[in-house]
């Protein structure tokens, strides 16, 4: 009774991502029909709740349509010349990561097969007050590579790269995070795209080799797969891929024109990409795993990483709105806005979650028509939307990815608040080693939801007894709890090992045909 499949986790999410255009149009039409029906043909109940619902539906329609536009064409047509091999600097950004991890990356970088390149450890350990900053310098000596240690802090990771750019001079440079181990052919498979003189940077997938380690790494990777699969391939088609901070090659001239790596934003890579694009430079996405990295291994690290991404992205909407950037094409504006606005989904999900609870306590509903009429339009709509997500991700997108995305609503809300209130948040490196502990407190809102739901059901039962409406709302609450459950479970260390063994059993049969052969 064991369900197992064999696939290569490094390629499955990158292949067969092209959906039928008829299907995409069909999903878009169904989504629009659903939206029109809910907005104009259903009698509103409580106007506040109706308003909340419609705001949510507008947002969802935007997400669906922008997703369909993104994955409309995922076939690459970039110019590539394998003979084009200019000199390159390879930067490995370091800020106190364990020396073994840095060493593995540095050796792999040194072992890359390419005519001429220099490897640099961009050592921020000193400014980050990490104990091992001297060890990093020693490691560079031992390996015969360069080390640039900053003594004056500014601009976090972006500042570190900018500092290195001042001390190097090659036309192209590569950025690897300390935990992202490149393949031997990384440069061979990326540099050829710069034959097109307008290409400003080349991005490759950020693959998490530890994605089977625990529930957090698995959840994090499930989210990444969709992004680095169909989404990035689609963005590539419209020249809208953005930098993801690691596993990327950049043209010095493009970065210089953009004003260097952006130091004012917590997600420096995202904003720098926007500036590079707005200067007319092109971007390329190479849909091949050419480096292996580490996902955040514990819930706290995951939480911090997601917060950083959410805050940085939301800041783009509120401070650097791409719609008003004249240098960007319409497609680029849409793509930047789509990616940044993803982080608004948290507040929408939370509001939708609250609707059944509000009913239990007040009896108020957003819509007063027969719920079967709503079901008649909602079920095909949601089915098709989920199907298109699966289809475009080559059936890698799973409930766990969806659950992690939706359950991150508190992170998104906190990030939104931080942006709106102008809070200052420092750049924090995602931990490369597992931090033990119970992180359930980070999910206090999720637990509160479960508790209030239970109280609400009891309250309703006391006042009204068993009704059909009670069952409908209980079912919605169950759906919400099922969605947040994997997230809650991942924050409980005691459950991690046992549960993972079961949930990942099918992955154990996967043959790992890595194209990464790293000499040590």
């Amino acid at each position, binding site marked *: 009774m064991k369900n197992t499949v064999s696939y290569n986790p490094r390629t499955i999410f990158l292949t067969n991502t092209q959906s039928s255009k008829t299907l995409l149009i069909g999903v878009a039409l169904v989504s629009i029909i659903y939206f029109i029906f809910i907005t104009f043909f259903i009698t509103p109940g409580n106007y506040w709740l109706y308003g909340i619902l419609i705001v949510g539906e507008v947002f969802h329609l935007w997400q669906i349509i922008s997703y369909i536009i993104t994955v409309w064409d995922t076939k690459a047509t970039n110019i590539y010349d394998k003979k084009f091999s200019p000199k390159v600097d390879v930067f490995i950004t370091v800020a106190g990561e364990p020396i073994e991890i840095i060493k593995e990356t540095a050796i792999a970088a040194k072992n890359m097969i390419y005519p001429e390149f220099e490897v640099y450890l961009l050592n921020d350990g000193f400014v980050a007050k990490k104990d091992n900053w001297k060890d990093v310098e020693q490691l560079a000596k031992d390996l015969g590579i360069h080390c640039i240690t900053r003594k004056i802090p500014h601009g976090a990771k972006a500042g570190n790269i900018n500092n290195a750019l001042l001390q190097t001079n090659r036309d192209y440079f590569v950025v690897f995070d300390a935990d992202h181990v490149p393949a031997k052919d990384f440069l061979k498979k990326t540099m050829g795209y710069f034959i097109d003189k307008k290409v400003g940077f080349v991005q490759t997938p950020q693959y998490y080799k530890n994605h089977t380690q625990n529930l957090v790494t698995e959840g994090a990777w499930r989210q990444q797969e969709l992004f680095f699969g169909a989404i990035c391939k689609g963005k590539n088609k419209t020249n809208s891929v953005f930098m993801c901070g690691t596993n990327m090659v950049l043209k010095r001239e493009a970065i210089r024109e953009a004003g260097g790596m952006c130091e004012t934003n917590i997600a420096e890579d995202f904003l720098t990409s926007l500036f590079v694009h707005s200067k007319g430079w092109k971007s390329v996405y190479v849909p091949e795993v050419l480096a292996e990295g580490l996902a955040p291994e514990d819930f706290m690290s995951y939480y911090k990483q997601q917060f950083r991404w959410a805050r940085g992205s939301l800041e783009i909407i509120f401070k650097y709105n791409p719609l008003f950037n004249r240098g960007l094409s319409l497609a680029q504006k849409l793509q930047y806005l789509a990616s940044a606005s993803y982080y608004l989904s948290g507040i929408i999900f939370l509001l939708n979650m609250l609707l059944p609870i509000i009913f239990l306590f007040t009896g108020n509903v957003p819509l007063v028509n027969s719920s*079967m009429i709503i079901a008649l339009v*909602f*079920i095909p709509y949601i089915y098709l939307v989920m199907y298109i997500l699966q289809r475009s991700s080559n059936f890698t997108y799973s*409930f766990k990815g969806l659950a992690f995305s939706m359950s991150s609503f508190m992170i998104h809300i906190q990030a939104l608040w931080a942006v709106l209130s102008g809070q200052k948040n420092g750049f924090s490196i995602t931990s490369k080693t597992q931090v033990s502990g119970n992180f359930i407190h980070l999910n206090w809102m999720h637990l509160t939801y479960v508790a209030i739901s239970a109280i609400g059901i009891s309250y309703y039962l006391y006042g009204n007894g068993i009704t059909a409406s009670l069952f409908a709302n209980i079912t919605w609450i169950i759906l919400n709890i099922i*969605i947040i459950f994997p997230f809650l479970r991942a924050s409980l260390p005691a459950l991690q090992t046992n549960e993972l063994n079961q949930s990942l059993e099918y992955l154990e049969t996967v043959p790992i045909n890595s194209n990464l052969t790293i000499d040590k």
Partner: protein
Amino acid sequence: MKFLSKQISKSNIWNLDWITIIFFTLISITISIPLIYLNGIRLDEAQSIWQVSHSIPEIFDIVGRDVHVPFYHIILHFWQGIFNNSIISARYLSLLISIISIPFVYILASKLYTKRIALMSTIIFILSPFINWYANEARMYSLLLLLAVLNSIFFIDILKKENTKSWIGFIITAILGIYTHYFYWLFLISNALFYLVSYKQFNKTLFPKFIISAVIILLAISPWIYYVISLGSAANTKPALQAPTSIDFFNIFSQYIFGFQPDIINSIILSSWPIIVILIFTSLQRKFKYSVFTTFVIFQILIPIGLAFILSYLRPIFLSRYLIVSSLFLYLYIIYLINTYFSKQMTILYLVGIFLIGLSLLLQIFSPYTPVKENFEDIAIYLTVKATARDVIVLSAPFTIYPFEYYYQGITNVETFPIWDRSKVSSIPSFDSSKIEEQVNKIKDGHQYMYVILSYDQGYEKELKTYLDNNFEKVEEREFSPDLTLYQYKLNL
């Protein structure tokens, strides 16, 4: 040795599947046989028995006017000739056909998916309250389902690896199917649409062959179409249906899974529709690989139901039993979906599903509130004893006279409202509000008590009852089953 043990192990699993299927079939038969005897005759069954009691040409005439096709009636005619003209023997025919379907359901499911999915869905099929209901009813629905299953097997065979036998089987089952029920067309249309949207995935030479088989099927049904047109008029002996609502749409799915349940349970089931959303979300599993035959299964669920729903706004035809074929494909799809889950979750879900379906089956059998139960037997026995030659029995709607007459052994005069002289006209006269008084007076003349049996409201039941309540003294009111009530009025002699 290893190879041998592997073979034996495979063979054992195969045998184990069949043993399991036989075990559940025996359970199903054990449940069904008493029901054949215990359940009273229902309206449709009474019509079947009455129709097949005629000669073959007469059957053609009656069935043609009744907006049906004659294949089942011919089989039942000969079956009744061999055994006897009772509802019991007619129900045994349906049960037999339903039991024959079981192995073919397994074969079809294993051709579409895997042996595990086949076993799981066959068990659901066997325990399904909906399927069980029609396995015990003297109507054509179990035959309709069997022919659809056989046709699907041949269809899948043709698509996978065509051979002459499959083509012959496909065409024969298609022709027999369209001579069993008009709604078989919806099934064939769904097949055709599936082929058209996914033809690129199959051998290109199939297309002209499908066109030829379509022509053969159309030619085969054309004599019957010509005959029905030549009859000139429909009999109008059926309940009038209302245009369906969204509730009816979901009711079909509820009935497919949970059978016929009392209103309170049914409304709870329907209100819990977000469970479908839960299933959609949680079935997003990375091992989930979409097969082209899943499109076939989805088409067989949604296209017949969707078309019937839309067409019902032109002429109401939306009844779950007409669309019984879709129920099987719904089971297949649900089982396929839960098979995309991890083993542990799948097993739990499946066992919960089996428990709920089994519970629904028991409720459907034993609950007196099951909405489709029609207790004409008890009402007829009651009146056989109670009503005298000085009284009159009135049935409304008029077509309910068939099941009543089947059981009624008394001496009281039996009339219908509106008055319907079956010896003169085959169609039921339409209701005329201005003629209530005239018709009631005609019926009541010379009688002491009037026993009015109301069921199958055709839109005038309330008006009739108000008239009777206002003009006569109501002596007794008694409900024999949901929507089947007896009213006794004292007439002024």
